[in-house]
């Protein structure tokens, strides 16, 4: 199995998350009328980390939810396997709120598109901004861009970028593979 090249090590990984938190605070200050929503399942690992640090930095409470997008994906019946859903944890509506949507990798833009469809079931947000850990800039299928980016990666379509997490993969790092590998 290809080992992949580390493009963001553990130290840089932590600093990047910290930087993203501070960028959010610059824009949202005390997060009044704002909420953070992680896209299940790997986007919500990033959002868990961010919310953990933000709650230490911000005095008030921040509304936080996790959104499963399986039923809204546009590749249903076009893939070899069905994607089994993860739980959605949304105990608030987004009507009139400023939503910060969080995912690990922005690639084709289809997941974010599905997330925006799923989000409509919870009301009409005032605005939606997108935060991603990795932005693969040149492989977009939809006109979707991130507002906050941890790391930009320019790679050909066959390449694969994986965000690895301590709690799942044993180490915090981002790896680059020349070809997609089955994990």
């Amino acid at each position, binding site marked *: 199995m290809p080992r992949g090249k580390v493009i963001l090590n553990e130290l840089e990984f932590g600093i990047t998350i910290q930087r993203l938190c501070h960028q959010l605070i610059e824009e949202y200050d005390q997060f009044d009328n704002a909420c953070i929503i992680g896209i299940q399942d790997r986007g919500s690992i990033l959002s868990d980390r961010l919310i953990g640090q933000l709650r230490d930095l911000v005095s008030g409470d921040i509304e936080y939810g996790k959104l499963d997008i399986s039923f809204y994906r546009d590749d*249903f019946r076009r893939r070899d396997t069905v994607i*089994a859903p993860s739980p959605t944890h949304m105990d608030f509506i987004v009507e009139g709120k400023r939503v910060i949507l969080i995912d690990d990798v922005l690639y084709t833009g289809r997941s974010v598109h599905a997330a925006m469809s799923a989000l409509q079931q919870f009301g009409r947000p005032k605005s939606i901004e997108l935060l991603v850990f990795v932005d693969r800039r040149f492989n977009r299928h939809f006109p979707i861009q991130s507002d906050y980016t941890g790391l930009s990666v320019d790679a050909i379509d066959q390449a694969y970028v994986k965000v690895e997490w301590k709690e799942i993969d044993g180490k915090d790092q981002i790896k680059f593979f020349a070809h997609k590998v089955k994990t």
Partner: protein
Amino acid sequence: MESGQLSTRHLLGIQDLTVSDIQLIFRTADGFKDVLNRPIKKVPSLRDVTIANLFFENSTRTKLSFELAEKRLSADVINFSAGSSSVAKGETLLDTVNNVLSMKVDMIVLRHPIQGAAIYLSRKINANVINAGDGTHEHPTQALLDAYSIREKYGDVKGKKIVIVGDVKHSRVALSNIICLKKLGAQVKVCGPPTLIQKHIQTLGVKVEYNLDKALEWCDIANVLRIQLERQDIKYIPSLREYAIYYGINKQRLARLDHEITIMHPGPINRGVELNSDVADSEHSIILNQVENGVAIRMAVLYLLAGTK
């Protein structure tokens, strides 16, 4: 993203499902249950799928439940009832279905009075087939929603003691339930008059108890079945009154038990026969939860089968 794939293209019976299939259906139903509790109860997953509900036998809740599940998934739905169709003019099942399929239908939900009708159809056509009850054979979605309701109330089905009470002989619900519950690790007994319990049912791994009070004393959950007079060509019981005395569940009977049990019923209930109103409408009953869970389970089955290439 966890990918999930059923081991089968059709849902013909619980017999064909593996334990991981059943667990996958339950996990998917959890997601749909969440959707059903939102203000907007619809998802777009099956927007390019057409489903035909072919009901060659009467049904109220199964048909409504399937239709609602299909609509919640944004599928296009056509309905067919045998009474108002060319079946009355002598058309065969395969001809009827092939005609429906030529209208570009992707999935068939079939209820039929003859055992094996769904299996036969699945061998002849390309569309996914879901058995919504075939004679006295199987009713898989009912068994799935029953087990799902038990899981919801108790956290797990494994190790639970369940007694199936009533007309086991004519019940497809009983057969599917027994297979499903055994696969999930529950202990199952059947209870009813000897004439309404098949010989050799023990070969399915269940015990037989003819005394209702003893059965109720043993169990955590009683799944109560309807006396199916329409399937009985001869008299199996002397009278409904006598049946109600020996096998009807009422409040007094439950009060005599040393523990509380949960009451389930697949419906429709013959009130005053197998179940008294004071039990059917009590806090012990999860009958309406079963109906609610039926939509989520059917959405999960349709979703997982439709996604199978």
